[in-house]
């Protein structure tokens, strides 16, 4: 058992392997995008400005989840809970902004799906949509941890769950930055 303390916590390790797995899915999708880009009837992507706001939101949330973790480690439970809830709210805000971004295409008369849609915009929807589902998973994890933190009967100061959630949260953040850069510069 002593030997195990030196090692990374198995659940954390599992998360890192899962991150590798999720990366493979997005690598598959973005390489499909690159393959398609070089073929006939490809439309150049125009990314509405609203996606810059969502990018900024998720970047901020990465900082707040880190603050929450720091406060938990310092046992400042009130500040910890505050930053945790702020992170979850920012996560929801990110998703709302993403959906608003897709609504914007409707105003611009660009079809994402259905007849007359172009694969470039369909890709944007499919890839960002799958990313959004992963963010949603992170939000759910944060909400579960927040509910546990707010519960009065359950006093648990273990940092492991939040550390795992924070690592995942940073990952979906970085993943979005990658996708955002990809969509903007890989047109």
């Amino acid at each position, binding site marked *: 058992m002593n030997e195990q303390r030196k090692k990374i916590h198995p659940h954390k390790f*599992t998360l890192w*392997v899962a991150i590798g*797995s999720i990366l493979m*899915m997005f690598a*598959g999708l973005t390489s499909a995008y690159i393959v*398609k880009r070089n073929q006939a*009837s490809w439309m150049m992507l125009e990314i509405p400005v609203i996606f810059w706001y969502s990018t900024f939101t998720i970047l901020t949330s990465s900082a707040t989840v880190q603050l929450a973790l720091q406060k938990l480690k310092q046992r400042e439970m009130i500040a910890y809970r505050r930053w945790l809830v702020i992170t979850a709210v920012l996560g929801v805000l990110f998703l709302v902004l993403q959906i608003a971004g897709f609504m914007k295409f409707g105003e611009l008369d660009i079809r994402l799906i*259905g*007849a007359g849609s172009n694969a470039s915009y369909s890709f944007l929807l*499919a890839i960002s949509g799958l990313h959004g589902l992963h963010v949603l998973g992170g939000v759910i994890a944060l909400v579960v941890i927040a509910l546990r933190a707010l519960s009065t009967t359950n006093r648990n100061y273990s940092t492991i769950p939040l550390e795992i959630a924070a690592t995942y949260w940073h990952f979906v953040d970085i993943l979005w930055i990658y996708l955002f850069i990809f969509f903007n510069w890989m047109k």
Partner: protein
Amino acid sequence: MSSETITHGHAVQATAHAHDEHGHDHHHEESFLTKYIFSTDHKMIGKQFLITGMIWAIIGGLFSVLFRLQLGYPEMSFPFLEDLFGKWAAGGRITNEFYYALVTMHGTILVFFVLTAGLSGTFANILIPLQIGARDMASGFLNMLSYWFFFLASVVMFASLFIQTGPASGGWTIYPPLSALGQASEGSKLGMDFWLISMALFIVSSLLGGLNYISTILNLRTKGMSMTRMPLTIWAIFFTAVLGVLSFPVLLSGAVLLLFDRNLGTSFYLSEIVVKGEILPNEGGSAILFQHLFWFLGHPEVYIILLPAMGMVSEILSVNSRKPIFGYLAMVGSLFAICILAFLVWAHHMFVTGLNPFLGAFFVLLTLLIAVPSAIKVFNWLTTIWRGNIRFTPGMLFAIGFVSLFISGGLTGIFLGNSTLDIHLHDTYFVVAHFHIVMGVASFFGMFAGVYHWFPKMYGRYLNTTMAYIHFWVTFVGAYLIFWPMHYQGLAGMPRRYSDFSNWQSFNQFADMNRFISTVAMVVFAVQLLFVFNFFYSIFKGRKVKSQNPWGANTLEWTTPINPGHGNWPGDIPEVHRWAYDYGKDGREFIPQTEPVGANESAH
């Protein structure tokens, strides 16, 4: 040293009482529901995977009997088929739609539900904690979820068999545009959506399982169990899990885009298509894109199926030859090489899609390179049993059968890996024969070997040996009789996925051969039912295991009580002092891994 001997000794003496002790410790926690249904015990989850896989194997095998009935007797009418399947077998003959549905479901069920979930799900769960010395998986909860996602996937796939328009029927590779357009075929309607949903659930199951296997193997090994002391089963399962974790998500991305094309009118895979006079609005899609995404999983999937069988066969051959495995590190290295190459050869499934021949040349080279690690493995298996003190237990017979089939099927892989030969052989019965022998039957043999070898650990009883020998010989001879002639048909150019060759001048000369193959297939299927009977009969009535280590094996699972409880070892987890293959060393028949290296003994 002394403490370990005491621990070990304690385990031996405590065997008789271990079950009772366990009962006192945990009985209050385990209701029927938590013990058999929502269990987090890796051994129970392994058995759940095995039995679910067996049910699927019977269904998938039965489908092959039905379409072999059509292929062997195309002009005959079987009224009982109409009684059973109604419009799908109108007039007692299998309709074309039904034939396509049968081959598609046969492939899907056997590749994914039996040989992926049923094989690695079973043995990864049962063997990892027992052989590395852990109480359970890294996360028992994820492990339970893994089974239940598999169960859900099974329910959805099973339900798709009963849809009015039938299950998916575009082949197990579900290539678009056929699979993307509901108006193109009955099997591309609702059945296809069920297929995709079921596979998405299956992928989640497989990923949850794989994550757990990897982190358990890397993090929860007992004291002294360094990576190079692990049994080869564990190495094989480890590489299998890595392959699955890296390749299944890519299939998921391909499937998600296909769902978009089917239901949201996008054009990822669809381009300028006319179906039944109707011009579709889609433009700019690429059907080949799907093949790239599919085979990026599809090829590693072959090794996901085969590697666990290789690992178990290595272990069983060594134990039953009473000799150390030959070239342990070469075995690990070749598993690793296969694992890397698996990701670099997917386009050899696509030589005839108009792939650039220059690019094809690289895929030919990389494909043929797989022959090197494969040959290393075969050489090491043969040298392991060479001049061994062989005990022909049923598990050992199936392991030897595996090696035979792997050689036979592997050699035809060299033919198919050449892009020029593939122009002639692509989509013929030669391909069918190749992958059935090397991946299908060989992996089944690995699975049977594993079941016969570890059944005493799973249920505390033996399988009936007489039935086992009948099962082995009929299956072994039958497998060659079924698939060997198919090479001949394939070389003659006979294409797969046709339900009737009787009106086809070039191939109706094979009518007798087809009838022969179909007859053998039915006999072999009947013998599998004998195995299933043996399995369930022996769970309850089999001969009881009396000694803790019935095979005289070195690995840790045989240091547990005969019927281990949740947690596996009643006392401390044993410490490991040596590798798993000290057989016939220093005049001793076998030296368990738990025994410290003696003063005059050379360490391994």
